[in-house]
């Protein structure tokens, strides 16, 4: 197939792409849209709670909004946005031409996308889920309508995508590293992606099991969670949190990775204590599986379990502390440049420390009986997830934008976004610690006056609008940059240390004309310090083998999407079962095609590559 034939249309190109860089862009767009939706939901929440006895939204609708806010932000915004950055960066960081399974990579995206789409269809089809993002079994089984079914089936589909994505990254990092890229030379973002992917591999199956139980109970007459028939609702809580707690680390470890890259780049220093950083990441990942029940201290597990989980949870503070100090000492003695990504990194350190210390406070089981399910916890996890993950996503987006799109985002607007968002974030969430301690439970659609909560809630709501303003400035920045932005160099920030800054911005579809030879940690920096311009190649220039694009990932996912509708309605309408089966047939049919069709991919010829490289060098 020639290059011309492949340039059919932009949309078709993206529907069929298996190129990790284009999949990254798909993740970024879809995740970004969901992030905006989750943000609007957050605004509704804060408007409703700005004053006591408010009736901006009704009680039932409020519960739908709060559920969708949490579910969307975790599953449909934070995860895919991280996947966007991982896809854009990790293969290049390890000197690979693509991921191990390009087809699966595309499949992972489309599953996530259709799962998210399915979940959000609930808004128009009788109401969204309303039992919180945790969807505790007794309440979710009681919930009328199909809201919870949308949650169960939607998350099942998108969770499958995440699992596939995680496995793909694991294999990619194990198998596809360039010569010389030993494990202990991998950039921290690659390391954290690696560990997070391992966590996905072990954490998502329990969620899958839980969701299957719930699907059985709600749609197919099961009794897993019905105590009258021998079921038990606490099982759901365990399954959910065995997934849910590692999920926090699945999100926050890559965030650590992003900040490690940025801090090192803009202080012009190698990461302080690299090996202990890696060790800390692995340890956090491991301990992350030992602590799930700290979300359940008030369930009545008894003092022995509570005490064990309390102490185990506290232990996580140690490796986390190691990381904080390592970042501080990376900055120490550096030559710190306050670019937009670096501002986020600087803002992240104190914000995340706040979230970390309140985490330890929550770990003191006996005191957690007070914090649990109060606004204190709401404040805590927003400090971790917004102060850690969202700041990292914003930082990473600014940092790698030139690598993804070939243009520099405006630094001026970037800084405006940072300050608005950062101030808004603290304004919104700091005061919530005190609201919780003053007795305010979480997930309340309103509150009565005269309980001492008015001022705190008003301040919190004002803060939310600052964050919204920051986000709007970011969108403006993106639009302006797309049309007028400055073209980015290969080493867009001038201080790049890792391999992605050695290839042109955006990277060519084959990433590296010649696979590089990695000669140390911060491979590009090593070369620069020896006065070299480019990387040392590990192979002669030759034809490059590429995978063919495929429409099948889209079709496989679409089939599940259709099938989910069918099974959800199988009790309401006679066509339900039919549609469910047809959907599955589409999925399995497409999988069958994938198995029988021989697809050898194609080659980009040496001459084409030389041509492209010349052009890239000129730009």
């Amino acid at each position, binding site marked *: 197939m020639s290059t011309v034939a492949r340039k059919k249309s932009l949309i078709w190109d993206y529907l069929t792409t298996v190129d990790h860089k284009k999949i990254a862009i798909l993740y970024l767009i879809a995740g970004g849209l969901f992030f905006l939706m989750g943000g609007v939901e957050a605004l509704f929440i804060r408007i409703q709670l700005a004053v006591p006895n408010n009736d901006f939204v009704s009680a*039932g609708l409020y519960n739908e909004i709060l559920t969708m806010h949490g579910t969307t932000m975790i599953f449909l915004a934070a995860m895919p946005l991280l996947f966007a950055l991982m896809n854009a960066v990790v293969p290049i960081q390890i000197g690979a031409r693509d991921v191990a399974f390009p087809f699966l990579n595309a499949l992972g995206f489309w599953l996530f996308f259709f799962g998210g789409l399915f979940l959000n269809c609930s808004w128009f089809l009788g109401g969204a889920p309303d039992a919180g993002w945790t969807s505790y079994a*007794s309440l979710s089984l009681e919930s009328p309508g199909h809201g919870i079914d949308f949650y169960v089936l939607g998350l099942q589909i998108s969770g499958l995508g995440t699992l596939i994505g995680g496995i793909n990254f694991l294999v990619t990092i194990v198998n596809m590293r360039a010569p010389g890229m030993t494990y202990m030379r991998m950039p921290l973002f690659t390391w954290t992606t690696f560990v997070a992917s391992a966590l996905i591999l072990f954490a998502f199956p329990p969620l899958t099991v839980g969701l299957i139980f719930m699907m059985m109970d709600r749609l197919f007459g099961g009794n897993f969670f019905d105590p009258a028939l021998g079921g038990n609702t606490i099982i759901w809580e365990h399954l959910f949190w065995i997934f849910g707690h590692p999920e926090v680390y699945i999100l926050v470890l890559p965030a650590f990775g992003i900040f490690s890259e940025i801090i090192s780049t803009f202080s012009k220093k190698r990461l302080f204590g690299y090996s202990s950083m890696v060790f800390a990441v692995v340890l956090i990942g491991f301990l992350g599986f030992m602590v799930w029940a700290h979300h359940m201290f008030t369930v009545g597990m008894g003092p022995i379990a509570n*005490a064990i989980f309390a102490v185990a949870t506290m232990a996580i503070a140690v490796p986390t502390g190691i990381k904080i100090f390592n970042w501080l000492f990376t900055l*120490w003695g550096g030559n710190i440049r306050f670019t937009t990504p670096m501002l986020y990194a600087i803002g992240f350190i104190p914000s995340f420390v706040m979230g970390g210390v309140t985490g330890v406070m929550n770990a003191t089981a006996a005191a957690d009986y007070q914090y649990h399910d109060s606004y204190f916890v709401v404040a805590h996890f927003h400090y971790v997830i917004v102060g850690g993950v969202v700041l990292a996503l914003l930082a990473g987006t600014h940092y790698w934008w030139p690598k993804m799109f070939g243009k520099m985002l405006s630094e001026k607007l970037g800084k405006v976004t940072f300050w608005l968002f950062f101030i808004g974030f603290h304004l919104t969430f700091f005061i919530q610690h005190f609201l919780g301690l003053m*007795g305010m439970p979480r997930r309340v659609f309103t509150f009565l006056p005269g309980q*001492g909560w008015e001022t705190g809630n008003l301040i919190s709501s004002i803060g939310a609008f600052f964050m919204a303003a920051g986000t709007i400035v970011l969108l403006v920045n993106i639009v302006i940059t797309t049309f007028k932005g400055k073209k980015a160099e290969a080493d867009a920030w001038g201080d790049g240390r890792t391999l992605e800054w050695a290839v042109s911005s955006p990277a060519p579809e084959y990433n590296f004309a010649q696979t590089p030879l990695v000669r140390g940690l911060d491979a590009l920096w090593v070369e620069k310090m020896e006065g070299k311009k480019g990387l040392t190649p590990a192979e002669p220039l030759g034809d490059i083998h590429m995978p063919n694009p495929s429409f099948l990932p889209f079709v496989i996912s679409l089939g599940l999407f259709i099938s989910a509708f069918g099974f959800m309605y199988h009790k309401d309408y006679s066509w339900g079962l039919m549609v469910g089966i047809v959907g599955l047939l589409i999925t399995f049919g497409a999988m069958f095609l994938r198995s029988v069709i021989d697809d050898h991919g194609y080659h980009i010829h040496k001459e084409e590559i030389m041509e492209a490289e010349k052009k890239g060098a000129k730009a």
Partner: protein
Amino acid sequence: MKKWLLNWRLFSLFSVMALVLAGCGEPFLSTLQPAGEVADMQYSLMLLSTAIMILVIIVVTIIFVYVVVRFRQRKGEENKIPKQVEGNHKLEIIWTVIPIILLIILAVPTVKATFDLADVKPMNKENRDKEKTLVVNVRANLYWWEFEYPDYGVITSQDLVVPTDERVYFNLKASDVKHSFWIPAVGGKMDTNIEDSKNQFWLEFDQKDAEKAGGIFYGKCAELCGPSHALMDFKVKAVPRDEFNQWIEKMKNAKPVVTDPVAKEGEAIFNKSCIGCHAVTPVDKRPEQARTAPNLGNFGDRERIAGILEHNEENLKKWLKDPESVKPGNKMTGTYGQLTDEQIDALAKYLMSLKVE
């Protein structure tokens, strides 16, 4: 000498923190104004953990500010390349070991408190002294609370009455979906599960603090349970033991005594439309599955109507006219047919007369 200095410093840090925090919230609702043994214990843990955490934050902040100010790029230094430091074992050991020590300091009292708070042996003793160890069965229902005093055969709803200055023991369960029982000023929460294995815990209500709080503590449902989760409040009346004994005696024998003709009319309507759900005597021998609505035996003494509205006839009428507008999704809406304004007036008169005090 040195140790003394450290102690003194810690002490002053604690007292400043306590002062700042005590300004927070209302005495009937705030965990920062503890009004009983459990809340006290939890408050001390909060102070200890906050102190340790503030210590950590101070250290990080000092290094952080120093680094960011001192090592920022200055004009003309754009191309300076700093020394590439690999690490420093001594430093790395320091910031591994010190946090471990701090955490041990925190972990020991945490474990101890966790076990202390779970000590419910006295309530499960074979021959418990029923005069001294009060047990209350708490049953949480979609948006209302039932409090049963099994030793006395008495049931009440929405307002929990307890004796002060002694440990009160609770059996906790829910009858529909999971809720969570929380009296912030008096102690942390515990979930009311729908499984048969009941949760148990204890609380202690301090007489002096109760007086400071006006005799009433606010209770909350702390687990999302449906549309009106935010409105699933209850009140706790903490009174001296004598007063409690008198109250429970009165409850044992309470029966509606209706003299007013309008109230009599109300009683008739009630016995037709409402009695299937609501009992009007605190002694209610029906099994719990049959008790699908708040016991109204001492409704006239309540602090609130439906847990949230100020307790007066006007609000009662509002509730009877349209409960949905007060508590969305409640289980009473639409179960008793249409009532005329006269019928509502009569019902209100009757219900307000249901008193034991």
